């Protein structure tokens, strides 16, 4: 029998509660600034929208040393009268537990799923602990489609700043949409609603939590697994997404390696599924959509273009091993343009992503090196995206992302034929 990832104390707490209807998991690591707000919003959401259910909040912590755990233990919603229609029938319980395994969000989720499974919860939701914009309605948005409409997987749909979520917008969303044929706009959003069946499915393959899935790869793994395994998926509009501010460039390269690596890795696993997909379909949407204004953000274009140019001058010898000569010629031409006129054609970007995916598939060189060398190109594409959309509204930006998605779908036959050739 495999060793449980839960500590003795956690197992004892789980046994005390016997079972629950709903589990909401909050992974954390040094989130003392925001976690109280998240706990309050979740507690209020459960009390307001799921008053008749037995609910448990699970905080799975990665060894915070800034007092996050104490804040979680001490946080209580003192006055529900402002938001409640009826008084909750059951108190909302909390389980605070450290997680074991590789440090990362995926390991935290593993612990949450294990607890949800032991409690035989009908529905489970996970939310990030660094959210500033979460409201009680997020809980309803993530859980209602599972509890009342029989969906297995609820992905979030946010209103974000036009420059936010660039890995999502330029790689993950268009690529997963082209591959698996489902238009899930935020496949690595961070907040999800999951049914009991899907939780059990996520727990089947324990080995997966020893890979990059244990880190940033967890979100795309969950979304892809849900879609590729034929579970009922939908998305729910949650409003604006505002994170606690961190330097986003600090771990960009490792983030890129983990996210892109997970997407490419899943391609191998679900080849039989995505190879048959020829077009994409919309998925059911829940929630009332509304316009939200987001704070303006500063972008250091100079640094991005410099990063791209340095990549062109220093990493060409690496890319020569797997990028086609015409792609390299086009890239070299781009490096000569000045910052404000810097552009990166969609067609070229899509071709690059597919050629990186093929190189990863063939293991032309170390897979880690392939993924690591993508960062300067990503910086170039992001700089061009910012340049192209300086004056655009969020709707215009969304249309631009849609055009990128269509380009990914258009070039999929090229990718598929080369991928198949390698499998023969």
């Amino acid at each position, binding site marked *: 029998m495999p060793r449980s990832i839960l500590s003795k104390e956690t197992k004892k707490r789980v046994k005390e509660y016997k079972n629950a209807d709903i589990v909401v998991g909050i992974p954390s690591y040094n989130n003392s600034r925001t976690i109280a707000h998240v706990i309050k919003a979740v507690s209020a959401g459960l009390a307001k929208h799921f008053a008749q259910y037995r609910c448990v909040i699970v905080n799975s912590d990665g060894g915070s040393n800034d007092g996050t755990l104490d804040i979680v233990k001490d946080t209580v919603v003192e006055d529900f009268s402002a938001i409640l229609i009826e008084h909750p029938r059951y108190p909302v319980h909390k389980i605070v537990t450290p997680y074991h395994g590789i440090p990362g969000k995926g390991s935290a989720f593993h612990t949450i799923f294990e607890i949800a499974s032991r409690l035989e919860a009908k529905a489970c939701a996970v939310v990030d602990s660094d959210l500033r914009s979460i409201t009680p309605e997020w809980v309803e948005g993530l859980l209602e489609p599972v509890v009342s409409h029989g969906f297995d997987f609820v992905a979030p749909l946010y209103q974000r*700043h036009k*420059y*936010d*979520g*660039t*890995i*999502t917008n330029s790689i993950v969303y268009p690529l997963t949409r082209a591959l698996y044929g489902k238009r899930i706009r935020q496949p*690595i959003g*961070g907040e999800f609603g999951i049914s009991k069946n899907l939780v059990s499915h996520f727990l089947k393959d324990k080995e997966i939590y020893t890979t990059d899935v244990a880190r*940033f790869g967890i*979100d795309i793994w969950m979304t892809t697994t849900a879609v590729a395994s034929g579970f009922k998926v939908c998305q729910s509009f949650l409003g604006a997404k505002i*994170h606690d*501010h*961190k*330097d*986003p*460039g600090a771990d*960009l*390269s490792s*983030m*890129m390696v983990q*996210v892109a690596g997970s997407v490419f890795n899943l391609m191998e696993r679900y080849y039989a599924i995505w190879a048959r997909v020829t077009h994409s379909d919309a998925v059911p949407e829940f929630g009332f959509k509304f316009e939200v204004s987001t704070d303006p*953000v*500063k*972008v*250091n274009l*100079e*640094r*991005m273009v*410099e*990063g791209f140019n*340095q*990549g062109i*001058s*220093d*990493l060409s010898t*690496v890319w020569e*091993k797997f990028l086609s000569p015409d792609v390299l010629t086009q890239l070299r031409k781009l490096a000569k343009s000045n910052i404000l006129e810097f552009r990166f054609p969609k067609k070229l970007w899509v071709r690059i992503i597919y050629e990186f995916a093929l190189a990863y598939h*063939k*293991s*032309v*060189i*170390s897979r*880690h*090196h392939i993924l*690591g*060398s993508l*960062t*300067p190109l990503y910086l170039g594409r992001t700089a061009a995206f910012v340049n192209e959309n300086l004056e655009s509204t969020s709707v215009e930006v969304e249309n631009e992302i849609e055009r990128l998605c269509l380009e990914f779908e258009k070039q999929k036959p090229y990718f598929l034929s080369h991928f198949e050739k390698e499998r023969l």
Partner: protein
Amino acid sequence: MTLSLSLSGPFILFWERLEGIAPKILEVILILVLGFIFAWVAKFLLGRLLKIIRFEDLCDRIGLSTALARANVRRSPSDIFKLIVYWLVIFLVIILSLSALNVQVVNELTSSFVLYLPRFFIAVLVLIFGYFLAKFTARALLIALVNAQVKSAKPISLAVHFMILILFVTMGIEQLGIAKGVMMITYAILLGGVVLALALAFGLGGRDMAKDFLEKKAKTAEKSKKKPDEFTHI
């Protein structure tokens, strides 16, 4: 009678000696013929095996084909591998056939050569391992430095590449027993010399330049700290 006896004497002696050595010569010829046939069969079978396991693809992946092309070697990696195995078998067959003659000098030579063979193979393995380790480490370092936007990423990774290569070449030569100790000392002196020369050049010769360079670096770092991106990538 006496004349005929004195004339036939050397022939008889020669014949007797030939009679004594002939089986051995036949043995040598037989070993050589069978050995050549065996070497050819081994080469043929190896060729088929390499095709089945896609040896050429593997060499492409690890960069061996490119390295050979750069060195102007026109044969494919599998051809080279087949040739190495073929000539190795031939070589062993020759040694085996010579030892069949049971001549003391040849025996001594072959035994000392056979004893040297493991050292030779270990040296070759050390060199091959060093080549790939140098390449892998330098590339990993280059990518990491470019992603961190370190301006001198390429020269740093090249320096690391050659340092590792030199270290492994030294180890290989040491293994072959050529100028034992001298190679290691030379390497240490070289490495120390390079570091010292760099320190002197940077610290004394180019004091002002170093100062300017560091100030410029600090200012650039300060500048980029002031203007971080505020959007999130995920």
